[in-house]
């Protein structure tokens, strides 16, 4: 079965239909997605600004103790609401370049955040390596947000 057929099957599913046909569900899920995006931005940026020397003087490992809770909560809500939005219109998404740009940058953002950025911060690392990873993490998430909004236009 091709990916396109899978998309058609998901689109025909009961959940996909329910979200698509409801007046309020899609906007409500979309708004929750945006609220979680703001939380994600805040938790990443408060650590990033500090690492880059443009923010708080508190050791980043201390900031991480609070920030990672909001980061995790935001990522979980974003993934759940994102999947729900996707289920309602997978055939449209399949044909949109912006969607694939978002998925690739999302994969990069998640991998870099959870396998490189977070472990380095937890360990109290510093230096050029951490600063480069920080810039990459910020750029990846910004691209995810930008490409995400772009899906609605392309």
């Amino acid at each position: 079965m091709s990916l396109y057929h899978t998309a058609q099957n998901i689109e025909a599913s009961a959940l996909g239909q329910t979200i698509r046909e409801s007046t309020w569900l899609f906007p409500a899920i979309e708004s929750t997605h945006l609220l979680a995006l703001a939380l994600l931005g805040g938790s990443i940026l408060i650590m990033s600004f500090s690492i880059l020397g443009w923010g708080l003087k508190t050791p980043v490992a201390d900031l991480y103790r609070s920030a990672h809770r909001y980061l995790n909560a935001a990522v979980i809500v974003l993934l759940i609401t994102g999947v729900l939005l996707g289920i309602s219109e997978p055939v449209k998404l399949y044909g949109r370049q912006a969607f694939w740009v978002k998925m690739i940058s999302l994969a990069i953002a998640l991998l870099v955040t959870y396998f490189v950025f977070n472990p380095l911060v937890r360990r109290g690392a510093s230096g050029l390596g951490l600063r480069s990873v920080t810039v990459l993490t910020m750029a990846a998430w910004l691209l995810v947000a930008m490409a995400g909004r772009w899906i609605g236009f392309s």
Partner: protein
Amino acid sequence: MLEGLVTKLADTPWSIALHESLYMYAITESTHVMSIMLFVGTIAMVDLRLLGVSYTKVPVSQMLSKILPWTIAGFALLVITGSMLFLAIPIRTYHSIWFRLKCLMIVIAAINIAVFTFRVERDKAAWDLGPVPGKSKICAVISLSAWACVIVFGRLIAYNWFDCDSITSPTMAELTGCPLDPG
């Protein structure tokens, strides 16, 4: 008077160019969304500190002096891109109930910021690292709720449920400034 101004705005070449552009509108809208991460994201972290639930090792004074400049930068980006989005679709946005509610929430958030700046944070030296007073927590809750509403109402402007051509109740006609359709 406002109505006339908005109608004039819609006839300007700037408005038409933005409205008809292939990429400029999308770039503006995407930048608006990215700026939310900077603005609401940083203000939410400050609010969580003022609530006393997070970043308790960071002095309140440092949170305000080091993070709020970023919040202000985010706000500037949002005002610029937001004005461009309004300029692109002035008349419909002016009548949108969601846009009006969004503006109301921004006013509430602004009053809250004024109260915090001129009243609440005055004696912050006394609670810089200690337990946060109730007045600070109240401001934080108002701020978090108001900005969350601003995001949600902003997103809903895109939906046409209450556009002028579907207004049937006198109350909604009053609230949106739309003419009441006799038919």
